[in-house]
C-alpha cells in the first residue's frame, strides 16, 4: 500500500506492506534507529513514539492504521539544532545510563507534558509505568521529568 503520513512534521509517502509494524518501518525503511525494540509486545516502552499527540508503542501499530496520522519520534524532538528541554534535563540529571530505555522514556515524558504541563509525582509515575528502566530505579528520571515541568 501507499502510505501517506506526517513524520516529525514532514509529509511522508512510502510504499509499504500494510502489516508492517511502525517500529520496523521507522528503523528499516526510514533508518530512524533511535526508536528501540525491547520486547515487541507493549510491555517495556522502549519503542514509544507519539501518534496524534498520544504516546504509543510503535511495535503495536501497523502501517495500515497510520494513514494521515502524525508521528513524532525521538529524531523529531530537536528544533533548529536545539535539544528539547526534556533531552537537555535528562542529560543533566544523570537520568541516562545504558540509554536503551531513554528514547522511549523521553517520548512518554514529552506526551505527558503536552497533556499535563505540571504533573504530580503520582501522575508522572503513572504515565511512565509502561517504560521499564533496568539500570536506575527511576529516581533520576522522575526528577528530570519534575524539573522539566517546573522549568516549562
Amino acid at each position, binding site marked *: 500500500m501507499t502510505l501517506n503520513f506526517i513524520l516529525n512534521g514532514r509529509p511522508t509517502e512510502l510504499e509499504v506492506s500494510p502489516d508492517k509494524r511502525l517500529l*520496523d518501518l521507522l*528503523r*528499516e525503511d526510514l533508518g*530512524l*534507529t*533511535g*526508536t*528501540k*525494540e*525491547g*520486547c*515487541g*509486545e507493549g*510491555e*517495556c516502552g*522502549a519503542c514509544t513514539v507519539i501518534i496524534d499527540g498520544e504516546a504509543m508503542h510503535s511495535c503495536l501499530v501497523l502501517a495500515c492504521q497510520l494513514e494521515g496520522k502524525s508521528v513524532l*519520534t*525521538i*529524531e523529531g*524532538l*530537536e528544533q533548529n539544532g536545539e*535539544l528539547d528541554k526534556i*533531552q*537537555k534535563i*535528562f*542529560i*543533566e540529571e*544523570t537520568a*541516562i*545510563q*545504558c*540509554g*536503551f*530505555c*531513554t*528514547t522511549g522514556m*523521553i517520548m512518554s515524558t514529552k506526551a505527558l507534558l503536552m497533556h499535563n504541563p505540571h504533573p504530580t509525582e503520582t501522575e*508522572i*509515575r*503513572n504515565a*511512565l*509505568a*509502561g*517504560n*521499564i*528502566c*533496568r*539500570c*536506575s*530505579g*527511576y*529516581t*533520576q*528520571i*522522575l526528577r528530570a521529568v519534575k524539573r522539566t515541568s517546573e522549568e516549562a
Partner: protein
Amino acid sequence: MVHVGKSYPIHDALGKATGRTVYAGDMELKGMLHMAVLFSKIPHGFVKKLDYSKAMELPGVVDVLYYGNTCQKEYNRYHSQYRQDLIHTERIFNQHVRFVGDRIAAVVATTEEIARKAVSLIEVEYEEYSFALDAHETLEGKIDNMDEHGSVFGSIANEVGTRPENDGTFVEVDTTTHIDRINHMAMETHAAVAEFDSQGELTIYSPNQTVYGIRSFIADLFDMDYNKVRVVKTTMGGSFGGKQEWVLEPLVAAAALRVKRPVKLVYNREESIRSTYCRAPMYFKNKFTFTPDGKLQDVDCDLLLDAGAYLGNSINYARTLGSKFFRTYRYPHETFHAQVALTNTIVSGAFRGWSSPEFNINFEHGMNMAARKLGIDPIELRLKNVIHEGDIELSTGLNLGDFKGRQVLELGREKFDWENRKKEIAEFNAQNKRYKRGMGVSLGGHVNGFYPAKPDYTRVDMCVTESGTVRCGVTLHDHGCGTVTAFKMIAAEELGIEVDQVRIQEGDTAVTPQDFVGCFSSRTTYVMGRATQECAKLLKERIKEHFAVERGCDVADVVLDGMTVYSTKEPDVVYTWSDLVYASQQRYQHEIFASYEYVSKDNPGVCGGHFAYVEVDTYTGMVKILDYLAVQDIGQAINREICIAQTQGASVMGAGAALTEHVHYRPNGVPFANLKDYHLLNSFEAPSVRVELIENHNTEGPFGAKTIGEVCHVPASAAVVGAVNDALQSDLNDLPLTPDKITAYLKNREER
C-alpha cells in the same frame, strides 16, 4: 578534589538522549546480511531429520547453517581466557537438543524478515527423550544421557576453620532456601555483527564485557591466529552479567566465515530470555549454630545448583559461592557442599554479583530466623557478628582492610528510624486485620576484583595529543553504567585537567591494550581505575621530563598547572601542553606518552546494608515497599550520582527478584519467555530508594574507592524478604515471594 566525588552525565548521554547512539542492533555495514536461528521446540531429544530445502528456495535466502555444515567442536560459553580449563559440552548447532531454545540451525538472508520466514520453513523431525525441568529430577537419574561427562557434577566441598565445642547451650537454626531462575532483562536484547575481510581477518562487534576474552574464545573455536580475530565492544544497553558469556558471537562468526559478508543477528526478547542464559535456580539447606547470646559459631550449607542444559560456568559459580562465607561475618567454622546438575532448561550463567546475592539471600534468611529464635533484634544480631576493620578472612588469610560493616548497620539503623518504626509497626499490626507491616535488614559483602583467587592486572596507555588533550587507552567495557565517564574523571583528577580533555576508547582488540581478564568481578574501578590513576601520574612525570629537556631545567622545578607547564625557576615561560608536544616532536623527537601495568595486590572487604519496610496485603498476597534505604561502604564515590543511581537500580532489581521475577516453566518444558509473564518493577511500583554512602577513602583503589555496581545489588533481595517475613512472622525463603506463595502460606497457617 575537583572532579572525583562530583556528578557527571554518562559520556555518551547526548547520543542516547537523541537516539543517535548506535547499538549493535542498529548497525549497518555494506553488503550486510541478517541471520535468524531455528531453536529446538522440545526439551530433550535428537534431530532425526532436518529438511531446509523450502528455506533455501525462499528468495533472499543466502545460506542455511546447521550442525551438518558448521564447526562441531565442543566449547564452553564461559571460556574467555587462553588455555582456560573447562568442560566443553556445547556446540554452535546441536543435533542432540537439550532444552527448548537450543540451537539447531540458522538462516542467513538479505533481510531479517526473510531470514525469520525461512526459519519457519525448515522441517524438523525429533526423537524425543525424557527430560528434567528440576535439578532434583536429574539427581534421580532422569536424564543420564545428556552427555559423556554425566549430568551431575560435584561434589564441591570445603571446610574452613575449627568447629567450636558445643557446651550444650548452642542454639541451632535449620533453614531452607529456593531461588528461582531470573533473567538479566537488560533493555537491549542480545545482538552481534561479524564480518570477514579479504585479508582473512574476522571482526566481531557486540556488546560484551571482554573483547580479548571473545577473541580467545573465537580464535580457539575456529583454530585461528589470535591476531586474525578483532573484537569491538559496541554500546551496551545493560548487561548485569548477561553479556559476559558467548552466545551470539560464535553464530555470527560462523556465518561470516561461510558467506564472507557481514552478518547481523539480533535476538528478540523471547529469544534473549530463552536462549541466552539466566541466573541459576538454587536449593539450599543449612544449619546455623549460635551461642545463646547470639555469637555465630558454625554454618553448614548444602547447595544444589541447576546448571540448565549446558555446563557453562556453573561449577565455577557454585565454587565461587562457597568462597563468600567470610566476607561479612566472623565466626570460627563453616562447611559447604555443592552439587551441580544439568536440566533441560535455559542455561545458567553469570548474574550481577556472581553468587554473592544468592549467597546473601540464603545466609541473611538464616540470620533473621536466628534473630527470631534467639529473641535478638536483627540489626543487633548482625552487629554481634559483623567483621571489623582489619579482620582476616578466615578462608584466605586476606586482610579485609577498611571494612565498614558495623558503620553501615549503625548508620542504617539511625537513618531508617529502626527503633521507632518497630513500635509503629507493632501498633499498626495490632490494629489491622488485612494489612501487615514489617521491616528487614540485610548486610552483604562482596569483592573488588579477582585477587587472590586469580591473576588480576591490567595495562593503561596515555599520551598527550597536539591539542594538549589526553588520549587514554584502557580496555573498558561500559555496561551503560558510566565506566568511561568515571575513568575520564579519574584521569582528569590526577592530571589536573577537565574531564572532557581526556578521551577514552572502549575495548577494541585492534586499538586498546591487551587485558585478558575483562570487565568482570567488580574489578573495573578498583583495579583498572587504579591503573589509570597510576598511568596519569606517570604521564605527569613524562610531561615534566619533556619540559625539562626543552628548557634545560631541573625536573624537580617543573610544575603542571591545568594544561600548562612551567619551571619555578622561570615562571614567566609557560608552555601549554600543546606547545610542549610541538617542541617534543621537533626537537626532543619523543612522544609524550606513558604506559603503566598495575597488578592488584589486595581485596578489601566491601559491603552494603539494605533496609526495607513493607506492607503485605494478607487478602491478596501483594507486597508494597513503603520505604527502602541502601547504605554502601564505597571508600570513595567517583561519579556520585551514578553511584547512587546504580544502587537504586540494584535495589529495585533485587526487590524484583524477591517478589516478582522468575522465568516459569510449563510442564512440557516450554518457558514463559516474555515480559508479560516476567514482571519487572515499573515506575509505579518501584520504591524511592534512599542511598547513604560511607566514604573513608582508605583503599588501594583510585582515590581510595571501592567497588559499587555489584555490591549494591548483593543485599537487596534479602532485605525485602526479611521484611515480608517480619510482617507475616513467616519463614518463607522461596523466591520470588509471589502473591500465590504468600497466600498459600497464609492459607496453610489458617488451616493449621
